[in-house]
């Protein structure tokens, strides 16, 4: 195989672990030293290690134990092999977690008590002591030196036995009796030390006065005592080298998540991030703690991502917030947190299935987890301060556990909380901090802040981002009927109506909301309506009116799971077909779906520009997940957003629907020029007056259809990342999760193709899909609605990954789903 082919066998996520050495390719998949394709935290499978072997602490004969599977050939002389073949080999089933074997149990035990380092230091010290006493004896042959030498040597040798037994255990559980150089040296040296020790003791037992004599036996006796010093130095040196190897090769601080010689066969995500989840009832203050923590972590220089899932109720229930902390940008949520703070018992029941073996759980007494601080946070808060302050108490605990300075949190609290709240909350925070310091809990270190990052980091949620996009698009009116999860945009623009000229009205229903916005556009404004699926269903007729009268329109449709009332506060991408097919009759429309916060702004602007330019309704599809998640965003230069106006002054002979080549007639507004502006929902002639002349009808149908083609030409291409032959295709809010999952899979065959301009699709933009061997569509719905749209465009979809449980895709679980589908191709 070629180097390129070799790189696919990187040992990750079920792929085999191959390495090349001196022209041969070895299969190291079975080696415990190469779990997840990584060796000692410094080498990765899938590459040629010929040069690296020279620096290895072991000889190349370690490879003798492994099977040679192929020869490494120069890519220029490679014989083409179908890529499929490679992936079949590369994707052996991921072994899911089995019950712990005896070895794995010992491994766990060893990790906690690490007996070898504990026992090894005594014999080392005693061997040194014995040798020192013996040297003293040479200078002053008195009995106390002789006795000291002998008993120290005796103790050293006996304790050495224990150290050796522990060493053998370590050799087994941690290194699988691997014959790497350091271990082999340690083994021989230890045996030598033991034998020499036993001979020395034996000589002393036969002749207790041997130290004073001049015999060969006496020389050997003294020699045995002195020679063990260099031998324990060798033992200690290689022991230290094995232990500290990783620290030497990479920065210890950043290495908190380096693969341990782990027994777990599940997918290990090696990412520099830490995921905190906080659970509690509605109204218990988890929103406050989320706000405090995200701001504090950002002030410390971390990059954060936060998301929430909540029940459709104002009080009680179980809600969670998730905060991911990293040294780089993150744009997706995880299923399993590293740390879970349960403010009440119910929250633990709620997240039970999301707690992994490595998750540190703080709080809750009814449930049990492997890594669990079993306390009632509310009781502890009550004991130290008061039950109401459980959220800041918990925040203090969290900072202590993460070994972060509490002063930063206090500063942040002072900035975020009202002044009369400071004293009590800071006390709660300090009490929590101190309390946690008394608790024994192991926790991963946080990633190190990347100081080179741009100082000016911006954070925004999808709701606010959409709002700014609409503002940039010149939106100056919003008329809506409140509906979760869309209401945030209505509230944002209402809040902005003091700074900008924005006409805001809460309509009596969605039908009125849409029709008011049409009135706004007709009158010269740029109107928006915000809604969710149920409300949009009511707007269906108005979509058609916008299409027929060619009155521009923008609808912000934040999806939630249906049908009917569905799950009002949760997420889904289930309304694509609704947006696509809403409204009777045939007319042009645009559907946009932002994939992240930056796109949320850009598409907000584009929605208004395109609606105005083509005189069509535009549906901006967001969802609860995107709307409620906070992510980093680069600084946006609003000067770059064009502020075009497409309204023309009318002449006295103005015709609203004048036929021309483009299908787009000049749009004027009342009282702007000498003409009259007549719009009609009936089929109309160029003047906007009712007609039933079939030729006029035909011309008008073609006019509206022609607009669709013009619009198609203006389409934005999907984002293509990577050039693999398996395309993971998504649309809208799944962008971040798919992107993270692909980067975790680290399989060069995978490429991400992501759509944010959903309809109408342009043929040229689908060429990449035609060229791609396999297509897997990822959608947050159960009917694969976008895959259907692709099929209508003659795209062959090989597989779909669908989810409609009310959650967005999590990067850590999506990894496994993609790996599974890739195997099945």
């Amino acid at each position: 195989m070629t180097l390129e082919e070799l790189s696919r066998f990187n040992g990750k996520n079920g792929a085999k672990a191959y390495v090349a050495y001196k022209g041969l390719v070895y299969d190291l998949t079975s080696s415990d030293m190469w779990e997840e394709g990584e060796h000692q935290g410094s080498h990765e499978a899938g590459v040629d290690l010929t040069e690296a072997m020279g620096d290895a602490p072991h000889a190349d004969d370690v490879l003798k134990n492994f099977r040679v599977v192929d020869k490494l050939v120069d890519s220029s002389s490679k014989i083409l092999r179908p890529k499929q073949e490679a992936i079949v080999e590369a994707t052996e089933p991921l072994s899911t977690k089995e019950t712990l074997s005896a070895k794995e149990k010992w491994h766990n035990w060893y990790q906690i008590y690490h007996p070898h380092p504990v026992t090894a230091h005594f014999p080392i010290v005693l061997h040194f002591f014995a040798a020192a006493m013996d040297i003293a004896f040479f200078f002053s042959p008195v009995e106390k030196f002789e006795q000291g030498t002998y008993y120290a040597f005796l103790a050293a040798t006996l304790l050495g036995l224990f150290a050796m037994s522990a060493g053998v255990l370590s050799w087994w559980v941690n290194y699988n009796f691997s014959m790497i150089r350091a271990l082999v040296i340690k083994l021989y040296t230890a045996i030598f030390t033991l034998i020499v020790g036993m001979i020395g003791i034996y000589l002393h037992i036969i002749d207790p006065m041997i130290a004073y004599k001049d015999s060969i036996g006496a020389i050997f006796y003294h020699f045995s005592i002195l020679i063990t010093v260099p031998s324990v130095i060798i033992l200690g040196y290689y022991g230290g080298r094995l232990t500290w190897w990783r620290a030497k090769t990479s920065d210890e601080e950043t290495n908190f998540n380096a693969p341990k010689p782990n027994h777990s066969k599940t997918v290990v995500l090696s990412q520099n991030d830490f995921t905190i989840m906080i659970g509690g009832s509605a109204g218990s203050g988890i929103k406050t703690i989320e706000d405090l923590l995200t701001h504090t972590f950002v002030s410390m220089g971390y990059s954060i991502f936060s998301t929430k899932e909540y029940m459709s109720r104002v009080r009680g229930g179980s809600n969670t917030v998730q905060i991911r902390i990293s040294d780089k940008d993150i744009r997706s949520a995880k299923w399993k947190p590293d740390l879970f703070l349960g403010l009440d018992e119910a929250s633990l029941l709620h997240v039970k299935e999301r707690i992994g073996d490595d998750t540190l759980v703080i709080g809750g007494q009814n449930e049990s987890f492997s890594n669990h601080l079993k306390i009632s946070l509310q009781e502890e808060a009550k004991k130290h301060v008061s039950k109401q302050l459980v959220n800041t108490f918990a925040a203090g605990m969290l900072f202590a556990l993460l070994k972060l300075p509490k002063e930063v949190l206090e500063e942040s609290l002072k900035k975020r909380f009202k002044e009369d709240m400071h004293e009590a909350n800071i006390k709660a925070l300090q009490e929590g901090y101190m309390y946690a310091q008394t608790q024994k809990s192991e926790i991963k270190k946080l990633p190190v802040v990347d100081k080179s990052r741009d100082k000016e980091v911006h954070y925004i949620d999808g709701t606010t981002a959409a709002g700014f996009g609409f503002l940039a698009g010149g939106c100056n009116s919003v008329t809506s009927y409140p509906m979760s999860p869309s209401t945030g945009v209505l509230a944002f623009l209402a809040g902005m109506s003091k700074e900008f000229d924005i006409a805001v009205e809460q309509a009596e229903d969605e039908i009125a909301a849409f029709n008011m916005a049409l009135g706004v556009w007709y009158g010269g404004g740029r109107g928006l309506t915000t809604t969710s699926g149920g409300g949009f269903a009511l707007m269906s007729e108005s979509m058609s009116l916008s299409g027929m009268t060619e009155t521009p329109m923008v609808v912000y449709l934040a999806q939630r799971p249906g049908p009917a009332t569905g799950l009002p506060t949760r997420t889904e991408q289930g309304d694509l077909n609704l947006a696509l097919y809403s409204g009777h009759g045939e007319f042009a429309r645009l559907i946009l779906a932002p994939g992240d916060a930056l796109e949320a702004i850009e598409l907000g602007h584009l929605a208004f520009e395109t609606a105005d330019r083509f005189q069509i309704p535009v549906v901006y599809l967001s969802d609860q997940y995107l709307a409620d998640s906070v992510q980093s965003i680069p600084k946006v230069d609003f000067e770059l957003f064009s502020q075009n106006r497409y309204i023309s002054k009318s002449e006295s002979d103005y015709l609203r629907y004048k036929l021309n080549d483009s299908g787009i007639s000049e749009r004027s507004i009342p009282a702007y020029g000498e003409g009259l502006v007549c719009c009609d929902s009936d089929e109309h002639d160029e003047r906007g007056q009712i007609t039933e002349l079939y030729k006029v009808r035909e011309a008008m149908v073609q006019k509206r259809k022609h607009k669709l083609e013009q619009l198609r030409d203006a389409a934005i291409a999907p984002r293509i990342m990577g050039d693999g032959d398996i395309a993971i295709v998504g649309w809208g809010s799944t962008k971040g999760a798919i992107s993270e999952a692909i980067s975790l899979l680290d399989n060069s065959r995978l490429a991400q193709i992501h759509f944010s301009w959903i309809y109408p699709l342009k043929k040229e933009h689908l060429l990449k899909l035609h060229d791609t061997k396999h297509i897997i569509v990822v959608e947050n719905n159960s009917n694969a609605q976008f895959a259907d749209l692709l099929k209508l465009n003659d795209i062959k979809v090989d597989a779909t990954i669908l989810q409609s449980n009310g959650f967005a895709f999590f990067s850590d679980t999506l990894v496994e789903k993609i790996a599974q589908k890739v195997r099945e191709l």
Partner: protein
Amino acid sequence: MNKEFMRHDTDNAWCPGCGNFGILNILTEVLQELEVKKQDIVFVSGIGQAAKTPHYLDVNMFNGLHGRALPVATGIKMANPELIVVAEGGDGDMYGEGGNHFLSAVRRNVNIVHIVHNNMVYGLTKGQASPTSQREFKTKVQVNGVSNEPFNPILTALSLNASFVARAYMQNKEHTKGILKAAFLHKGYALIDIFQPCVTFNSLNTYEWFSQNSYMMDENEHDILDISSAMDRARETHPFALGIFYKQERKTFEEYLWSDKKSPKSLHVKKHDIKEIQKQFDRYTIY
């Protein structure tokens, strides 16, 4: 007769003798006498025979969906408060399909003229009961006669504290003109329910029936500032009272909308200040 506001290049679809003609004539005369510029007037309508009126007028027009004229009219006033906006339609359009919008428009006090042609029947769909159909009125659908209580738009509007409520009968031309003119001059929402016979589908509520079942309120006997007596009059049926029931000046929707700043003449002429957007963005996003 000067018909400056009459449109001559469209084909009228009403039946000969339809009461709508009378209303159309009155409207053109009122608009002319008010000396308004036709470019400044927008007629918004829904669907129905009455909703076709804007097609026959030489003004700006938005002929939308059945029942939806009021929200569109509201939106137009939001975008450009200086336009004279009229929402016009029939009883089925405005009180039936658009009933919810009617309630809200009254409450909002949008500065529009709301003209409802009330012929107590559905004309466009050929003769079914409308919300204002009288009990016992038989149709092909209501075969045993209408059983629902007729909708009382006057009393409903009064109960919502409407700022101008009137009823007219198109046959009383000068009376109707006077009321319409007052409605146009009124600042705030003005409802004019206009009786109008349907000669084809309503054989019960004929010209004669309307004449016999209505009377003009004496201006000296009815205090249009007194809502209680207005409500008493509104409760009267057979005969129905005609004239302005009630009138009050109160803050309009548009005045509330732009209360904390100077109302822009039209949203069209203003653009958002990009620097202000940038400033707000930084304020929101820098943690």
